[in-house]
């Protein structure tokens, strides 16, 4: 019997361990502490080579800034909240802020959010593969 197809990660820095919870992966410079998304050879902050170490990014953070998008490319559902989130312990990630009314009165800069992992809004690639994405939602 064929195994059910596992979803693919939406970006390289989303890791899906075979036996564990998905997480976002950063690469941290051992010399200066700068955190990058995705693997790289050289730190663009302090220029050190070969000293970047994989690190598991936190699932908690705070909303740095956002925009409520009402007009976008054809075929994409609006509105959505584009959010920049600073994760606890380092790393800044951009994504959709969900489970919140798309109204500036209801979204507070600096509010705590958590990273959640869900299907990528039903989007599939040409081969029909499903994808796992990350989202932010308000945390208490």
């Amino acid at each position, binding site marked *: 019997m064929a195994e059910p197809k596992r979803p*693919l990660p*939406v*970006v390289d820095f989303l890791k899906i361990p075979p036996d564990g919870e998905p997480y976002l992966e950063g690469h941290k410079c051992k010399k200066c502490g*700068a*955190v*990058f*998304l995705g693997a790289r050879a050289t730190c*663009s*902050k302090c220029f050190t080579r070969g000293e970047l170490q994989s690190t598991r990014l936190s699932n908690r953070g705070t909303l*740095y*800034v*956002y*925009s*409520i*998008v*009402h*007009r*976008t*490319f054809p075929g*994409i*559902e*609006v509105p*959505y909240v*584009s*959010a*920049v989130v*600073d994760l606890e312990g380092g790393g*800044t*990630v*951009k*994504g*959709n802020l969900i489970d919140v009314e798309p109204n*500036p009165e209801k979204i507070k*800069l*600096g509010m705590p959010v958590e990273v959640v992992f869900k299907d*990528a*809004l039903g*989007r*599939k*690639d040409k081969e029909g593969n499903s*994808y796992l*994405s*990350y989202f932010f939602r308000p945390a208490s």
Partner: protein
Amino acid sequence: MSDVYVIGTDMIRFGRFPEKKVEDIGAEAALMALDDAGLGIRDMQALYCGNLFQANGMVGQRILQEIGQTGIPVVNCANACATGATAFRDAWMSIKAGIYDLVLAVGVEQMGRGLLGGTGAGKGIPKEGLLGSGTMPAVFAEAGMEHSRKYGTTFEQFAKVSVKNHHHSTMNPKAMYQKETPLEEVMNAEMISYPNTKLMCSVNVDGAAAAVLASERKARELGWKRAVRIRASVLTSDPWQERDLVMPDVNTCTRMAAKQAYEMAGVGPQDINLVELHDCFATAEILHYENLGLCKDGEAGQMIDSGATALGGKVPVNVSGGLLSKGHPLGATGIANIYEVSTHLRGEAGTRQVQGAKLGMTHVIGLGSACAIHILEKVG
């Protein structure tokens, strides 16, 4: 080292010209600038051509194929929204280096309509609207939000930028739009990406602008009554910032460029009489008041409220109508700014003339990022 001068400059009226080719409008602007200088293409020793969307299409050579194939060196350059300013700066450098005496710089773009940006598909599935937004209105909305976060800047204050720049454009016959937009109209226009409404987004237009640059020796020889001196030319890229992987930083590279430009010119922000800055979105203009040192950090909201940056104010900003109303043909914008500031320094700006203008600044930002700043001075 001797200075470099702008001795001729012009731009076509920005608009939509789907029936024309990019080299047609580039050639038009080039001839207008040459006429303004009282020179011909045979006098030019090099051409620096800025164009983004046909960056691999030898646009500079195609322009010469329309106006005169003299065999001079042509450099085609692309640097996002700093494309035109980069071509102009390369022309400046070539004269500064003592290689040439007379050089032509052309910036030209045909845009088409619609949203720019978007989080590219890359591999896998499209990311726009899934991992936030990479559309330009959203990116600059988020940049504006950073200012709101720090200083409490309001939607209304951002909107006032559009009211001002659209008002300015009513006095500029070369602007795409020449229409007043009262505050309520700006704020109630279709919301594109909060807090940027449709009237707070720059206009995609076709356009071309050109400038003839001359060495000091040549400018003097030609009689430099209408010449404009280039006091500073600076280009920077984005230094590392902790959020810049997901949030393009338009501030730090502008601050670096402004500091270098003021030092190069030996002047300060208080000496500048007018500024054409990169108002690709209304939110951006607010940030750049502080980035360019026109006011202290945290005072940009107050600055737009006070009218200091309107025509007649302490330091008029974007009296051309800016990208918001004059239009933003990416590769042409940097040289169109040079035309605008030069026109004021020459005292030829008609009803929108900034009275007594002696020093002016131009500023562009290309996301990715590139920032170019020039300081120009009236001669005599």
